[in-house]
């Protein structure tokens, strides 16, 4: 009779589901996490983007422009005034999204009606992060000086606008999305595969019954951990190489910086993810649970790192979480090296957080590693 047999399986599945706490936690946790992340953390219209201003001229006109920028809500002046060299450095470090340069003779040319040029340089490595801000700039052009152009200058208000706006998309002139996505994919692929690989490492020993034998032998946890992690560093490098080749030859993504620097930085990121996976495998009771834990790690990494959505569009709490995740920093490193040609000292601010994360994950894994059965 079909109904009875159906019920048999149905009831059995329910009982098994109830036993498996992690799966249960997944069923509740994943939707909650997605709701929170998509609902509160993600914003594809980032505002308040850090901006530096190079003041070639500090007349009331120039100051009005700065005020108008701030009033637009898209720009947050973090350093002003700065030298051109410093502005360039800030942009390369990724500390500012925009550099606005008010040229030396701005006021003089403005009053003469020579329509001076206001230069706005945008870090276009992530085109999505800057596009709305740039649109806002264009409307700003018309209105920024409305209050200042009074009396004899009122005539300047008439079209065309009193000054010219030159927008320079740095590092990605044409705003090509692939320039952002393809290098970023390297980090995403590594996060996904590396965590999963070692995530299965200890649980596999447990499930196949080889763990007890391993524990009975004179081998230290740190030896087991490093021995299990090291082979996957090679796997990671194979992936890095494939993606760089594809990025360059299939997608024409420029590789401006030094490849050795990129490879050298990658080892920390790969090791950090492998350590996370190893930690998961000491926490999980089965390979299945290890996979589920990996998913819990992967989801926020994907959403909060700045890969899928602009990092600066997220609320502060989400940025804090993002700052902890290795992927966030690695994305900045790859984009920095490949697109901006970052030098080692410019990579460092994003490298040490990855290294610190790696050490913390390893320490946790070793703490969790059981030297006795059960």
């Amino acid at each position: 009779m079909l109904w009875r047999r159906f019920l048999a399986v149905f009831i059995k599945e329910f009982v098994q589901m109830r036993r498996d706490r992690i799966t249960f936690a997944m069923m509740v946790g994943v939707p909650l996490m997605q709701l929170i992340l998509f609902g509160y953390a993600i914003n594809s219209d980032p505002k308040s983007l850090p901006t530096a201003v190079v003041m070639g001229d500090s007349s009331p006109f120039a100051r009005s422009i700065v005020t108008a920028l701030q009033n637009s809500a898209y720009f947050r002046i973090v350093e002003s005034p700065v030298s051109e060299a410093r502005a360039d450095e800030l942009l390369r470090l990724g500390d500012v999204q925009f550099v606005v340069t008010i040229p030396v003779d701005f006021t003089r040319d403005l009053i003469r009606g020579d329509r001076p040029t206001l230069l706005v340089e945008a870090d276009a490595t992530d085109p999505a992060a800057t596009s709305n801000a740039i649109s806002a700039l264009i409307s700003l052009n018309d209105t920024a000086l409305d209050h200042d152009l009074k009396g004899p200058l009122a005539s300047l208000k008439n079209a065309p606008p009193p000054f010219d706006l030159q927008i320079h998309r740095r590092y990605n002139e044409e705003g090509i999305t692939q320039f952002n996505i393809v290098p970023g994919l390297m980090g995403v692929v590594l996060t996904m595969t590396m965590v999963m690989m070692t995530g299965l490492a200890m649980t596999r020993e447990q499930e196949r019954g080889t763990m007890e034998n391993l524990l009975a032998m004179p081998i230290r946890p740190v030896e087991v951990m490093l021995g299990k992690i090291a082979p996957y560093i090679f796997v990671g490098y194979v992936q890095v190489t494939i993606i760089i080749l594809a990025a360059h030859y299939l997608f024409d993504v420029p590789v401006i910086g030094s490849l050795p620097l990129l490879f050298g930085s990658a080892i920390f990121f790969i090791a950090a993810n492998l350590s996370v996976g190893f930690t998961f495998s000491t926490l999980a009771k089965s390979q299945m649970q290890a996979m589920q834990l990996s998913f819990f790690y992967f989801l926020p990494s994907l959403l909060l790192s700045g890969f899928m959505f602009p990092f600066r569009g997220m609320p502060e709490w989400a940025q804090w979480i993002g700052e902890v995740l290795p992927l966030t920093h690695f994305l900045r490193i790859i984009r920095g090296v490949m697109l901006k040609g970052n030098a080692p000292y410019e990579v460092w601010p994003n490298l040490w957080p990855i290294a610190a994360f790696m050490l913390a994950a390893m320490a946790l894994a070793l703490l969790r590693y059981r030297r006795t059965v059960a």
Partner: protein
Amino acid sequence: MTLAIDVQGLSKSFDGKTVVHDLTLRVARGQICGFLGPNGSGKTTSIRMLCGLLKPDSGSGTCLGYDVIRETDQIKRHIGYMTQKFGLYEDLTIQENLQFTARVYGLDRRNERVEASLERLGLHHRRNQLAGALSGGWKQRLALAACLLHEPELLLLDEPTAGVDPKARRDFWDQIHAMAAQGITVLVSTHYMDEAERCHEIVYIAYGRLLTYGSIHQVIAEAGLTTWAVAAKGDGARIATLSQDLSGKPGIDAVAAFGAGLHVGGRDAAALERAIAPYRSDPMLTWQRTEPNLEDVFIDLVARAENDPRAA
């Protein structure tokens, strides 16, 4: 006479349930000690405590002179432990498994040792076979080879012959005796009575308590059982009903199947005779006094342990 194993009062509980109770065990070097007991009686747990894989809740002692609580690293280096479940890698070949084990123990002359081990165990021609593809008997040989590589002084074998055919079992035991002759101490858990009889001494535990300990003769003599063998003419149905009738009768402490008949044992010979008297006149049955065997003794011991108020 030095002791390979010398532990006192080892106890272990899981989730509030005591699994091993106050275990005291002394095994002299070069002895083969059989570790017997029903499933779940705490054999594996005891062995794990001896080799440093589990920390006893209480108790103390030494294995090969190393403290079982503090010097587990030393113990691991000097003992060979064969787990109940096959513990090597099924996706590695025989040779790769042995190489791995030799590396973990940091052995010198690694290739030489692996070769010698393959040769000795007759695994030479199978070296490139995946361990997962081996039958139970061959897996057992491989597991034994792996735990002998580092020349341990003490072997802890947890049900090594479960699921192994009789011929392989016999070979295995010959090997164990050869090793004991070289001075290696062996503690081996088993369910087979014929294997127990090949041990120098046996330990029997049930419900986590040691019930008896000594050579087979000592164990049988100490039990003080009087035993009768019953055989029935005709079919086995008579024996089955008889077994049910006799079990639990006052004076009858152990009823065990023996061949096609039964062994009926009791500690008090007179009481036993009174209990079986009504059945002795049954023309279908033949009764005969006999020597108790290990199984009779164990059945009696377990029955007594069950009635013991201390038992879990």
